């Protein structure tokens, strides 16, 4: 879980940096060129396949873990304990499932459309014809229901990361009196800032487009 | 019956070495065929079972707990003595031997004690090798502290949890043998009888506590390491499950109970707070290094405190009686356990007790806090520190030294011992008496051995602090593995013992009828209520001080209580299931018999020595008066159903130490 999780944490950063181009004030040119590059570069494609694989692996391992752990626990207590553990750490499987559902929605909106969709908006920069991904994104995000769905998804992600980031290091045995507090601080900052960074996008688009 | 102690001849310091080098051995191929039963998994039992397993014997080990690691050795706080002389302060095997003999008020066997002192050195090495995390100095070497009034620092410790760490070491060694198959472990099994064939111990009857089934286990010999009988007093620092049953069943089969009246009352325990209480908690003896013991001078003040109208801080300095400092100026608050306990009782008997029950004295750290505070202020360069500054600094020093004990005290009593003095009172802690054993740790029943607190051998009439752990491990690791060979070398031609033999059948029937008898009483009173009444009786008449009249009366009352028990006890459920009340009932039934023998023994011993204080045998100042001419013997008792328990004497001869009166004035 920890290795795949850390890979996905890295991926999120890259994904966020790319997506932040949605904010550039050029009617989506930079974003579209970026998207086109990402979907045609063979190396990126290979990494993308790896990424899908890790997501699936992370999910499958998570499910197996949850099932094994549920069996190991047997029955639950009648009173839920009021102790000092975080809500997120107790609900990683639930959060993971929600994130998976969110991913399906996300992929349905974009990846599936770009691969198999028809009547996609196109755009031409300096004679190169490419999908107008920017237009696609703005169409989705300007609908309140999807905008809210994305925000909820990112909130869930934030909780998942709140536990997941530092936990990955603990699972790998990377713990040290000096460095662990730094890792924990980083993890908390990451789990707030990265989802927040993503959340700016639908909000920005929603409020600038409508 | 003549008691042969089988002490080898020769120089005291050479006896054990010579004996060990010349005793009979069992060859490895024969060890594989020989079976040994070990009952109990405390320090003595676990270390014995592990070591015998390592040697190649087939060991079956029994514990009434759910895991061997729960035995009550785990609760020992202070430490373990060893004559390592790492501190270069003049310690030696002889000095440890001498301190132990003297501390025991000259009522133990010289040769056994010397062997104990010799083994003490190896114990530390063995435990370190097992990974016991003893306290260490900054240089990485083992640390020591001083303990219980002796003049050298020979106590090894692991914070306040030495017993736990040593037991876990032994438990791990045992676990290793269990994994290798040389020891078969039977948890939640309680031994309820010893089986004798042709006069030799050949097995036990055990009850599987989980299912209630009665099982027969046969072996070439039986080793009992089942601890002490302090719970005969109901309230003691022993664990709730600690009991005399295994040892007592051995007595019923002819083994002798030696010196049962020698019980150790520990002076610093948290006092009883109410009738619901079933267990007392010890506060380490080390507290007396810095705490001052006192009671109010005036009975009216004590009364006011008991009724809650005053507290300790309302009593001015000149109205306090620091009675230990007053009575024993040389040793002050650091007199040995038996002396400190009796003095507390005297103060409370005079009506100066300071808890609502009237049974508590103060252990006050205020002057230590002030002293340390001033020292700290000086070393920190604080000029003219305010009194609150001094107290703050002093409390920090005390917290460093005794923090965990203070915390425990506060958890239990709800009072802050930094602000108000602790209340303490003596409580039963350890029993020096036990099964009579010879030099080989073999009882008078051939093939039946007793180790650790279960035997009587090493502490005489009073045990020194940090010596119980030493004895348990010495017996288990370094004595029984050799001496058991003396018996077993004669058994190499004995085939596997048959658990279907008629002796086993008879013993099993015996156990079943006892259980049926108890279950079928169906009276009205709980086992606990009988145990509580028994405890009160034994405490009252055979506790910190005894007299002939009281002992006669106590004996009579115990017999009456025993009769009532068999007529009116109520045990829910049946014998064929998990039934903790039945377990308790069996144990209390045995305590009811043991208690009587304790009284008989105390009555017989017309002297005061160690933990046994007879009011008739005291100096005018109230100090103990020993009688070496008539009572320098071990009193070993056999049980008789008709009440005529028979005394067997083993004379104690002292060739290496001179018998002196202990004085702490």
């Amino acid at each position, binding site marked *: 879980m920890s290795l795949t999780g850390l890979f996905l944490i890295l991926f999120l950063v890259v994904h966020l940096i790319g997506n932040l181009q949605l904010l550039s004030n050029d009617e989506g040119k930079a974003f579209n060129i970026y998207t086109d590059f990402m979907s045609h570069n063979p190396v990126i494609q290979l990494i993308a396949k790896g990424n899908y694989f890790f997501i699936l692996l992370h999910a499958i391992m998570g499910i197996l873990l949850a099932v094994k752990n549920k069996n190991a626990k047997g029955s639950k207590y009648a009173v839920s304990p009021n102790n000092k553990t975080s809500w997120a750490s107790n609900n990683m499987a639930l959060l993971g499932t929600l994130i998976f559902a969110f991913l399906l929605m996300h992929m349905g909106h974009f990846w599936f459309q770009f691969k198999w969709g028809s009547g996609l908006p196109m755009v031409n920069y300096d004679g190169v014809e490419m999908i107008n991904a920017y237009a696609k994104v703005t169409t989705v995000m300007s609908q309140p229901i999807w905008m809210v769905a994305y925000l909820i998804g990112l909130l869930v992600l934030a909780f998942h990361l709140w536990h997941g980031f530092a936990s990955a290091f603990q699972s790998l045995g990377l713990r040290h009196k000096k460095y662990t507090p730094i890792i924990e601080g980083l993890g908390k900052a990451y789990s707030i800032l990265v989802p927040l960074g993503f959340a700016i996008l639908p909000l920005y688009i929603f409020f600038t487009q409508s | 019956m003549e008691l042969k102690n089988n002490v080898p001849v020769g120089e005291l310091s050479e006896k054990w070495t010579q004996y060990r080098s010349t005793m009979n051995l069992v060859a490895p191929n024969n060890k594989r065929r020989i079976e040994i039963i070990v009952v109990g998994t405390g320090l003595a039992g676990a270390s014995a079972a592990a070591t015998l397993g390592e040697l190649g014997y087939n060991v079956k080990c029994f514990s009434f707990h759910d895991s061997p*690691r729960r035995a009550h050795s785990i609760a020992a706080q202070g430490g373990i003595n060893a004559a390592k002389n790492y501190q270069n302060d003049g310690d030696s095997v002889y000095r440890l031997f001498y301190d132990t003999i003297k501390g025991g008020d000259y009522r133990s066997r010289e040769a056994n004690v010397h062997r104990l002192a010799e083994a003490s050195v190896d114990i530390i090495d063995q435990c370190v090798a097992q990974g016991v995390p003893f306290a260490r100095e900054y240089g990485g070497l083992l640390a020591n502290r001083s303990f219980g009034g002796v003049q050298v620092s020979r106590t090894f410790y692991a914070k306040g949890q030495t017993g736990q760490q040593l037991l876990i070491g032994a438990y791990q060694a045992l676990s290793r043998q269990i994994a290798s198959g040389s020891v078969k472990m039977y948890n939640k099994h309680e031994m309820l009888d010893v089986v004798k064939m042709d006069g030799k111990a050949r097995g036990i009857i055990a009850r599987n506590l989980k299912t209630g089934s009665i099982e027969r286990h046969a072996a070439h010999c039986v080793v009992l390491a089942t601890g002490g009988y302090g719970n005969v007093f109901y309230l003691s620092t022993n664990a709730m499950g600690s009991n005399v049953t295994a040892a007592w069943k051995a007595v019923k089969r002819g083994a002798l109970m030696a010196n049962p009246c020698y019980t150790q009352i520990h002076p610093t325990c948290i006092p009883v707070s109410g009738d619901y209480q079933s267990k007392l908690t010890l506060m380490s003896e080390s507290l007396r290094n810095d705490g001052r013991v006192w009671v109010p001078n005036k009975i009216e003040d004590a009364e006011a405190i008991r009724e809650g109208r005053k507290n300790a801080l309302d009593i001015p300095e000149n109205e306090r009686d620091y009675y230990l400092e007053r009575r024993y100026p040389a040793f002050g608050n650091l007199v040995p356990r038996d002396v400190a306990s009796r003095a507390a009782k005297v103060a409370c008997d005079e009506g100066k007790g300071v808890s609502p029950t009237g049974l508590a004295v103060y252990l006050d750290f205020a002057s230590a806090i002030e002293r340390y505070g001033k020292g700290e202020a000086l070393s920190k360069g604080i000029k003219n520190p305010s009194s609150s500054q001094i107290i703050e600094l002093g409390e920090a020093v005390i917290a460093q030294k005794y923090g965990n004990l203070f915390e425990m005290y506060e958890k239990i009593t709800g009072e802050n011992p930094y602000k108000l003095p602790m209340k303490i009172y003596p409580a039963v802690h350890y029993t020096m008496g036990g099964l009579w054993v010879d030099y080989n740790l073999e009882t008078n029943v051939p093939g039946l051995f007793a180790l650790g607190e279960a035997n009587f051998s090493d502490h005489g009439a009073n045990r020194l602090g940090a010596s119980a752990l030493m004895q348990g491990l010495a017996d288990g690791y370094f004595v029984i593995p050799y001496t058991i060979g003396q018996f077993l070398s004669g058994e190499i031609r004995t085939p596997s013992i048959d658990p279907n033999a008629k002796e086993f059948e008879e013993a099993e029937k015996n156990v079943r009828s006892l259980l049926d008898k108890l279950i079928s009483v169906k009276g009205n009173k709980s086992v606990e209520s009988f145990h509580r009444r028994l405890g009160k009786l034994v405490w009252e008449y055979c506790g910190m001080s005894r007299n002939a009249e009281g002992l006669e009366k106590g004996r009579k009352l115990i017999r009456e209580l025993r009769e009532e028990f068999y007529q009116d006890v109520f045990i829910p459920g049946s014998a064929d299931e998990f039934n903790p009340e039945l377990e308790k009932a069996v144990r209390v039934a045995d305590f009811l018999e043991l208690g009587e023998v304790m009284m008989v023994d105390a009555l017989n011993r017309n002297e005061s020595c160690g933990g046994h204080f007879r009011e008739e045998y005291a100096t005018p100042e109230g100090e103990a008066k020993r009688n070496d001419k008539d009572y320098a013997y071990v009193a070993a008792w056999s049980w008789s159903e008709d009440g005529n328990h028979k005394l067997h004497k083993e004379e104690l001869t002292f060739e290496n130490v001179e018998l002196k009166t202990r004085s702490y004035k």
Partner: protein
Amino acid sequence: MKLNLKVWRQKNNDSKGSFETHTVNASEHMSFLEMMDVLNERLISEKKDPVAFEHDCREGICGACSMVINGRPHGPQQGTTTCQLHMRKFKDGDTIVVEPFRAKAFPILKDLVVDRSAFDRIIQSGGYISVNTGQATDGNSVPIEKDLALKAFDAAQCIGCGACAAACPNGSAMLFTSAKVSHLGLLPQGEVEHTKRVQSMVAQMDEEGFGFCSNIGACEVECPKEISTENIARMNRDYFKASLVSE
């Protein structure tokens, strides 16, 4: 003080259990187990079956007590076993729910008594240093850094009560196992067998049916000896290392 107790009653592991409600008059000076004694005395006087619970030393060191009080093993007080928990931590009129330790690897024997022999088997799988009696060298022959000895001691404080596995929503025994692996592995004496020990103890832990660790941290919060999850990280690290280098 008057308390409403909801106590779990179960005849054995095969039968179904349920809660039974009792009111108990207790004093605030009683320990939790003494309060249970009061309840049992009354049940016996009414010729009913007393509540079975495990207990022995009542000093917080033997590790026998195995109750979950209001959802928390050993109750609400930090770093305290049930036997050292006193009723002054509760208020008059409180309802207290008492359950047994719950984890698949701890089958219930009766009421609040569970079978924790799985822990013994984990220790048997390698939780020791292989030294026979008599083989030891002098205790001072190997100096051990004081801080290291203290770290080992902190891990060695485990009383084997099982609160960690009982508190863990995953029923994992990682804190218990890692405390032993750390205690022995940190000391030079135990280093020799360390690689083998980590692997075999983890394997045994899995075989017993304990869950996997997901770093929730409930074990550390409920451990009466406050053993740190740092030990779990250490064991994870050593386990990876062992898996990589072992042949």
